[in-house]
């Protein structure tokens, strides 16, 4: 937090730009990857390999007619997708794209917001993101939307518990020599870089639980019952059209990007690759390499997100809730207990 104002703004613009570039790329990637998995082609008319398809989709959404159902509270109807999109973008602010850049005498940490409470910001943003869904469902003045919104938000708050407990399980591994841990994601990556072992090998169960909970938090298959077409029409975004729907869409994909980024930093070593990006303090070339490694891992994990969507069947709602409360939550607690014991015994 000692950066001058212009540097803060620059970092914010970079992170924002990165996310906003990844989201349309992700939309296209989803359609192409799903097509490839289903032995068909996917969009390839608009631009080379369909690269301009997201642009076409954006133009379509901008120019579509905004249908607003009657009896709808205007401000909340518009604010709901904005809340969802904003919270997803906030999560990206605490993700480290690289280590510490050293230019001359100035040391710049390659995080947009290098706060001490890194992961807590992610949890807080996802907690506030629930409002976007709930209000979207309620403000649509329609039974199906309300039910879909309530189902979706109940799912999200249920899996937030598993998310937080699995997170605690891996934060225990972030203690440095003095035994003091840190919430900051850049510190977690730095510790993984120091020890050379990624956390996924030291806390595999936490990785599994966190990833599952992240899937549920972003309402992605196999947990996307509230917005599946055969159920409840479209769930909370049934009544939304054009750009407001576009914002919900953006929020969902930005949440995917943010969730993947957090998982990559917590478990998969962030910008660290053994023998390629060993140290934390680097010059400009090293920083570019770190960012490239991070991006590669991010894209790989996003591919995994998409792959899972088109592979696994969808959970029914009661199965979903039962899984979250009776299976994942006790597992996360047990993981916390065991990890705490192992760390205290000095084994991990």
């Amino acid at each position, binding site marked *: 937090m000692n950066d001058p104002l212009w540097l803060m703004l620059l970092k914010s613009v970079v992170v924002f730009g990165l996310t906003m570039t990844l989201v349309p790329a992700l939309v296209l990637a989803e359609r192409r990857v799903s097509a490839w998995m289903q032995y068909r082609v996917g969009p390839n008319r608009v631009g080379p390999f369909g690269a301009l398809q997201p642009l076409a989709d954006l133009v379509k959404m901008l120019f579509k007619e905004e249908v607003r159902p009657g009896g709808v509270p205007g401000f909340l109807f518009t604010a709901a997708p904005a809340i969802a999109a904003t919270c997803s973008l906030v999560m990206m602010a605490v993700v480290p794209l690289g280590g510490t850049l050293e230019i001359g005498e100035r040391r710049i940490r390659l995080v947009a917001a290098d706060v001490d*409470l890194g992961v*807590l910001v992610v949890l807080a943003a996802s907690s506030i993101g629930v409002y976007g869904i709930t209000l979207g469902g309620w403000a649509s003045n329609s039974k199906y939307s309300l039910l879909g919104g309530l189902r979706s*938000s109940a799912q999200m708050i249920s899996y937030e518990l598993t998310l937080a407990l699995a997170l605690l399980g891996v934060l225990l591994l972030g203690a440095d020599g003095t035994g003091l841990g840190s919430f900051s994601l850049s510190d977690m990556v730095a510790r993984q870089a120091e020890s050379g072992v990624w956390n996924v090998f030291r806390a595999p169960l936490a990785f599994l639980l966190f990833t599952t909970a992240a899937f549920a938090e972003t309402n992605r298959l196999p947990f996307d019952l509230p917005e599946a077409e055969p159920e409840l029409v479209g769930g909370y975004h049934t009544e939304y059209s054009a750009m407001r729907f576009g914002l919900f869409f953006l929020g969902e994909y930005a949440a995917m990007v943010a969730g993947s980024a957090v998982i990559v930093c917590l478990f998969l070593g962030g910008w660290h690759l053994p023998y390629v990006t060993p140290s934390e303090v680097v010059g400009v070339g090293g920083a570019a390499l770190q960012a490239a490694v991070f991006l590669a891992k991010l894209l790989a994990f996003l591919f995994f997100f998409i792959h899972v969507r088109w592979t696994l069947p969808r959970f029914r709602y009661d199965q979903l809730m039962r899984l979250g409360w009776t299976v994942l939550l006790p597992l996360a607690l047990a993981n916390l207990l065991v990890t705490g014991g192992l760390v205290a015994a000095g084994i991990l």
Partner: protein
Amino acid sequence: MIDERVAFVAFAVVALTGAVNVVVRRNPVHGALWLASAFLGIAGLFLTLGAGLLAAIQVIVYAGAIMVLFLFVILLLNLEAPPFEGISIARGASLLAGAATVALLVHPLVVARELQLPAQPPVPDVPATAGNVAAELFTRFALPFEIVSLLLLVAMVGAIHVARRPRPGESA
């Protein structure tokens, strides 16, 4: 950098408008949303006081879980916003009670000159970071911590039991 007083005033305005709207709004859904925004303002105030962990917990627990629970119940009950009936004597008396409470609480601030001095910088060796809060919480306050855990368990069981629908064959 932005002056601390500006940050205080901004967050205080958010908290106060939220609080006023909770009391004033007829529609309970709007009231709940304004209360959530007031909680976010109070979280900002915690940040200006240097209590970062508390600010995060305020957002995650209060604004992000408790208020969502409130919202669930309000939405599920599908209440209507009653029309404004006017200021009755009872309402006037309650406003007076609120004002009297504020006067009572503010009175020592006005009378005792020492509370009006500019604040000293906080104690540097024990700032309210997560590590220090945890150190206090798990050593000196370990017993209250365990009791509060038990309290939460009791509250959970109680809430589930009270809110349960009677199964067919059972009486309410």
